[in-house]
């Protein structure tokens, strides 16, 4: 009777191929939301907000209008690159959650691949847009179209441990004005035992954290953003200056080269900073609200508010930053998009708008979890209680830069990470810069896409 079994198996297979059933047998529409957030782990507040606020309220609201809808949350708690891969595979297969949270920088390549679609006229008429500034809107933009709704933005600063600064005889209200000021503080901190003076993310194991918290703000501080609107930045004095700073830090005993290579290096750097074993740490405001938060952080610091200082990232020398700026920063942010393969596009669209309403964002950032949202009307209310985030919103965001929303960016970013890795393991900056330039020419498709030299 084995052929019966075989035939059944084949039958099941064929049924499996056709079935992307939406489970609407009982008349209930099912929607799924995904984000790189998970209860008890990464971005725990976001996960809690989706599960405890968004889902029940949306279901209630729809039920009141006679629509039976059941929303579920698909959590993740992994590195951004892994989350991106998973999401891209989902979308490529025409499957995946109905509402997907993406890093704004992925919008371009996902749009080019046809995985996500531009918003339609009705979605563009949403009343929330007037509260989202143009620069922030562009997080969801690609080639003149909007593909989703940005929900938050961020900024990068230099964090420093006030206790260690006091021990090393440094001022506890520190604001460096040049890279030399940073190195000088690092040298003073090097006198302390068991302390990493400066943690400047480098190497490939840190992934995008190397580019976003290290190379890009430094490049802006050296006077040249990575992309000038038409061409990519090649080897030259700016890149050599940036790589030179890595050489000074990691060749001069001011940083821990091994930490940049460890698979869990970034998490360890957080842990050590929280333990008071790192002097200066370049990071985004995520560190403050997601990592060091005394109640819900992944490396909580009970005395965060008094022990941790923050300063703007200075240009190489005053006025040397891009556009003649004295201080610089980099910003990104996440965007929620609709899955074009969803079974209930209209309901999903309503859910997306609901998740970005002033009321919802206010609930998301209520109490302990203040964060910089995309909406100015919400920021005015929720940031008032958090000096650090107000500092970012008021002083850092006006002087910040964004990454170019181009499909080549992830590869360029990887090349920059590799350049820092080489410098950290002893290659001289000029050689590393030349290697970068050679690889860059291949990635961006020819020398005509590279600025100068």
């Amino acid at each position, binding site marked *: 009777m*084995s*052929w019966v*079994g*075989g*035939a059944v*198996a*084949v039958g099941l*297979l064929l049924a499996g191929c056709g079935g992307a059933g939406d489970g609407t047998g009982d008349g209930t529409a099912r929607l799924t939301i995904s984000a790189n957030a998970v209860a008890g782990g990464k971005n725990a507040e976001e996960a809690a907000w989706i599960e405890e606020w968004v889902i029940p309220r949306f279901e209630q609201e729809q039920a009141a209008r006679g629509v039976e809808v059941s929303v579920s949350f698909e959590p993740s708690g992994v590195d951004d*690159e892994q989350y991106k*891969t998973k999401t*891209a*595979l989902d979308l*490529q297969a025409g499957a995946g959650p109905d509402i997907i949270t993406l890093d704004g920088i*992925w919008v371009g*390549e*996902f749009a*080019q*691949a*046809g*995985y996500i679609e531009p918003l339609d006229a009705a979605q563009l008429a949403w009343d929330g847009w007037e509260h989202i500034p143009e620069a922030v809107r562009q997080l969801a933009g690609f080639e003149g179209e909007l593909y989703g709704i940005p929900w938050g933005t961020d900024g990068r600063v230099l964090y420093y441990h006030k206790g260690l600064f006091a021990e090393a005889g440094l001022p506890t209200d520190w604001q460096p004005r040049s890279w030399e000021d940073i190195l000088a503080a690092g040298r003073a901190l090097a006198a302390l035992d068991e302390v990493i003076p400066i943690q400047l993310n480098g*190497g*490939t*194991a840190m992934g995008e954290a190397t580019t976003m918290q290290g190379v890009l703000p430094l490049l802006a501080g050296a006077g040249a953003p990575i992309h000038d609107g038409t061409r990519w930045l090649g080897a030259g004095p700016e890149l050599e200056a940036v790589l030179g700073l890595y050489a000074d830090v990691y060749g001069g005993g001011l940083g821990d080269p*091994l930490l940049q*290579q*460890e*698979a869990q290096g970034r998490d*360890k750097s957080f842990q050590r900073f929280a333990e008071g074993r790192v002097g200066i740490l370049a990071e985004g405001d995520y560190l403050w609200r997601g990592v060091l938060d005394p109640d819900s952080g992944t490396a909580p610091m009970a005395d965060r508010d008094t022990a941790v200082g923050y300063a703007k990232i200075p240009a190489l020398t005053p006025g040397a930053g891009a556009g003649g700026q004295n201080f610089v920063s980099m910003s990104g942010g996440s965007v929620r998009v609709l899955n074009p393969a969803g079974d209930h596009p209209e309901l999903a669209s309503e859910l997306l708008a609901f998740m970005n309403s002033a009321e919802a964002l206010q609930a998301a950032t209520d109490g302990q979890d203040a964060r910089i949202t995309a909406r100015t009307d919400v920021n005015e209310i929720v940031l008032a209680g958090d000096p650090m985030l107000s500092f970012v919103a008021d002083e850092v965001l006006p002087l910040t830069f964004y990454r170019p929303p181009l*499909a080549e960016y*992830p*590869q360029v970013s*990887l090349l920059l990470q590799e350049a820092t*890795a080489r410098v950290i*393991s002893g290659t001289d900056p000029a050689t590393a810069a030349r290697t970068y330039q050679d690889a860059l020419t291949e990635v961006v498709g020819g020398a005509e896409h590279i600025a100068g030299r």
Partner: protein
Amino acid sequence: MPSTSPGGDAAGLGRLRAALFTAPALLLIVAFLLFPALWTLYLGVTDYRLTGLAAADPSTVGLDNFERALNEDRFTDSLWLTVQFVIGSAVLGQALLGFTIAWLLRERTGVLRRLVEALVLLAWILPSSVVAFLWIALLDRDDGTLNALLGTPGTAWLLEHPMASIIVFNIWRGTAFSMMLYAAALGNVPPSQLETARLAGASTWQQLRDVVLPRIKGHVLTNLLLISLWTFNDFTPFLLTGGGPDNRTEIMPVLLYRTALHGGELGYGAALSVLMLLANLVIALVYVRLLRSRTKEPAA
């Protein structure tokens, strides 16, 4: 067409009914083996990507991917690392250690034997993710067990000796199979022959070389064939080192994963997997030839 002659059709089914019986199995093979293999070959000659323009509209690039792989240091480095990993952890490590354990335990019974076998087997049957977590805890720089045992605080084993670390890890992980296979093989060696050799004054080494090895040569080759192929395709070291530091543990499966999924270059990744398949075939061919020459020997 009646074809029920006893010589050609033992079951007496007839061609049509025989074909019907095999059809489900053949369909499964086509669906799950043949089609994916051909599809991989096709992807290997395109510039298909996970995201971006080439995801929506891939174009054929001929043999560029293969040419790029063979010219790229990263590929040749990875191949060399894989060879080191296979020879170090499988051919030398697992096979020798497995044999040693089997040899030492061959005449023992009781608690000791059961304990050793249980421990070695445990390393084999635990899930990879669990094992990887244990080894990270063992080798960790800050609070690692190994550093505490050796009194070497601050030694980052996975960073300073990455290849040695994953080789030792894989020996520990996979020795059970060799041990069990050799234990069974040693049971086939007639005790009388060993006894005779011993009475004739043969040393342990001479007994192994002249009595045991000729008897179990087939088992040795089969074992080496299997563990070489498994190790060649093993992805578990990725859980320990992520292919780092500086790609120094980027063996072929890791390179493939990082290229195709992390880097999104699905076309190039497919080309790499074809090359990996070829490498597997070469390994298999070498062993099969050795096995065949062995079976011919007694006849000649």
